[in-house]
């Protein structure tokens, strides 16, 4: 492993840590000077989720089925990410955004970290505390904790998405809201399609 590879891994790790503790500064830094090689690190993080979800969705250990499921998840997530980022980039351009798709895609890919955290946690929780939740006090408390956890990650995701649009496309808040409205229609239809084909019940945006 070369010196530059180690540098990229350290930079990716610093950026992932940064979006946790200093999202504003870190997203600005990613948008302005991040390396496209960092996408490999994000791919590795996503692969961890694919591996866990594949095993959870296929309890029987059949290598062919596991490989097929893993590849199906990977392809759908890549297509979904390209589609979602493409929609936001086009919408951002329509409302007056300035910036290349490449730089936007790099910063947008970091917004997948909250998504993958939620999907990974939900996959593991599916084994530890399988649904359905009951209406008994324990069930309500567990539901409340899960909803708080989910909402926290959703807020994190929204903030990172906002910062990605702000720094990569140099948009103001009203224009970002406009871009979100424009992109929401196609994203809703795409989310419904992934639900219909049975890959994700909650879209992996």
């Amino acid at each position: 492993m070369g010196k530059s590879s180690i540098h990229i891994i350290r930079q990716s790790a610093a950026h992932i840590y940064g979006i946790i503790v200093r999202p504003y500064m870190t997203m600005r830094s990613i948008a302005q000077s991040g390396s496209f090689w960092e996408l490999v690190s994000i791919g590795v993080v996503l692969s961890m989720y694919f591996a866990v979800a594949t095993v959870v969705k296929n309890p029987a250990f059949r290598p062919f089925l596991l490989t097929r499921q893993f590849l199906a998840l990977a392809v759908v997530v890549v297509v979904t990410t390209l589609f979602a980022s493409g929609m936001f980039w086009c919408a951002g351009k329509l409302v007056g955004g300035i910036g290349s798709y490449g730089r936007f895609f790099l910063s947008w890919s970091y917004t997948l970290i909250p998504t993958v955290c939620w999907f990974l946690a939900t996959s593991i929780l599916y084994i530890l505390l399988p649904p359905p939740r009951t209406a008994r006090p324990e069930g309500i408390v567990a539901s409340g904790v899960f909803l708080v956890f989910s909402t926290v990650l959703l807020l994190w995701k929204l903030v990172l998405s906002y910062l990605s649009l702000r720094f990569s496309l140099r948009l103001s808040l009203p224009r970002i809201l406009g871009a979100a409205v424009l992109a929401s229609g196609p994203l809703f239809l795409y989310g419904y399609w992934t639900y219909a084909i049975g890959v994700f019940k909650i879209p992996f945006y």
Partner: protein
Amino acid sequence: MNSNGDVYRKFQKRWEEITDLPPQRVGPLTPLYKEATKRLKIMPWPVFLVVAVCVVVGLYMFFGNGITLLVSILQRGF
């Protein structure tokens, strides 16, 4: 001297980063926006947690035990 040069270069890089975008203005809501975003720039988790708890309490008051159904759907969502 070399150390001073490094400090200057870091300062210059930081300055360019900060001044790259004009400050966000949202008309009469600008002070409110500044106050809200100030707490989200560094370690935003306490704010996220407070907002999330308020949202979930609101959901519970609105849906009651129905939140368990919502969670059951979400748990199958991966």
